[in-house]
């Protein structure tokens, strides 16, 4: 029961984090369109690391 709540909380946190990453990357691209490629790569790496954390929580909390 509690592990499910914990996993849910982590997923909510990961969702907020993903939103932040995407939003900030958008802002960055809007300010400097010539850096789009670099920003996208960094965004995907950080999103992947965060996703790994969220999946790890789901996996352990199942």
């Amino acid at each position, binding site marked *: 029961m509690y592990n499910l709540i914990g996993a849910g909380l982590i997923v909510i946190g990961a969702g907020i984090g993903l939103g932040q990453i995407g939003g900030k990357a958008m802002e960055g691209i809007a300010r400097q369109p010539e850096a789009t490629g670099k920003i996208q*790569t960094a965004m*995907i*790496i950080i999103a*992947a690391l965060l996703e*790994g954390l969220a*999946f*790890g929580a789901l*996996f352990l909390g199942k």
Partner: protein
Amino acid sequence: MKIAQKTIKFLTIAMVAFFTATTFASGTDKKHDDQNDGGRVNTKEEVEAYILHHIKDSHDFSLFSYTGDNGERHHFGFPLPIILWTSEGLVTFMSSEFHHNDDGHVIVEKKGLKFAKVHSKIYELDQSASSISFDETHHPTNAHKVLDFSITKSVVGILFIGLLLLFWFSRLAKQYKTKKVPTGFARVLEPLVIYVRDEIAKPNIGEKHYRRFTGYLLTVFFFIWVLNLLGLTPFGFNVTGQLAVTACLAIFTLVIYTVSGTKGYWMHMVWMPGVPVLIRPVLAIIELAGALLIKPFSLLVRLFANISAGHIVVMSLIAIMFTLKESLGVVGATGLSLVLSFFITLIEVLVAFLQAYIFTMLSALFIGMAVEDHDEHH
């Protein structure tokens, strides 16, 4: 034009081989009474059981099955060889001897040993036992597991993709000997190879060392990508959604970046320079746990969870046509399921590429951290 003709020819041969094999390999067995209460099957439970069965690896290559009018269950697929290492040495037989049974009722006797298959795991029964029995925690009381080297469905997928990649890339490599520009399907592969080299290996590992690791990165990229795509075909492979497969890939990356780590990398990990001495052991524990446990664990769980979740979502959306049949009607439920599963499958094609890219990218990043030069003082 020539490529199209060749492709059509190959597809025709594949289809013919496929259908002849399936007709020979069809088998039947009695449907169990507990699944069938008064002619009605609990659709939701059956869908759930089917999806969970699909996610797991299996000992036979089953394509589809249905229940006939007389209550018999018909299975279509290929039997696959089962290879076991037991106390009596090597034991091999075909999975068809279990007659598609997965709850331990069918006992196969080989070399005086008795085997039963329960939830895709093969158990060796004790000499006195005639049927397998379980305690409350679902551990068998009169049987034990054996070392299982079977050619399971996932192994078939891996072997198939391995041979396919070997064929594609040896042809691509051979073409460079005679001409500057590759022709045919190799023209599709060349930009991808260059993409992995220039966009993944070079920026993350660095100009100096990237050549040593490009081979591994290319292998792992194409292996994961093509296996992910194979998982989207209706043959029902779920290879990159097996923990064993992703764990193995993550261990390859772990071994490569651990072995190729420079002196500076290890110094920064176990005895961080420029930090108060009392904090250094604490940092060492964190860094070692991060490099040896958390990095490979996040690699393996990410790939496994993404692909498994994708398969579950696609199959659940396909199952809408059965579960919502009563409230939406046959046409409505089928239409909804078709539209949703079509678009989610398109997203899964993107995810298949993205996960291969991320696995390769993070592997390159970890290798780059291990081999970079720590000349500067900070």
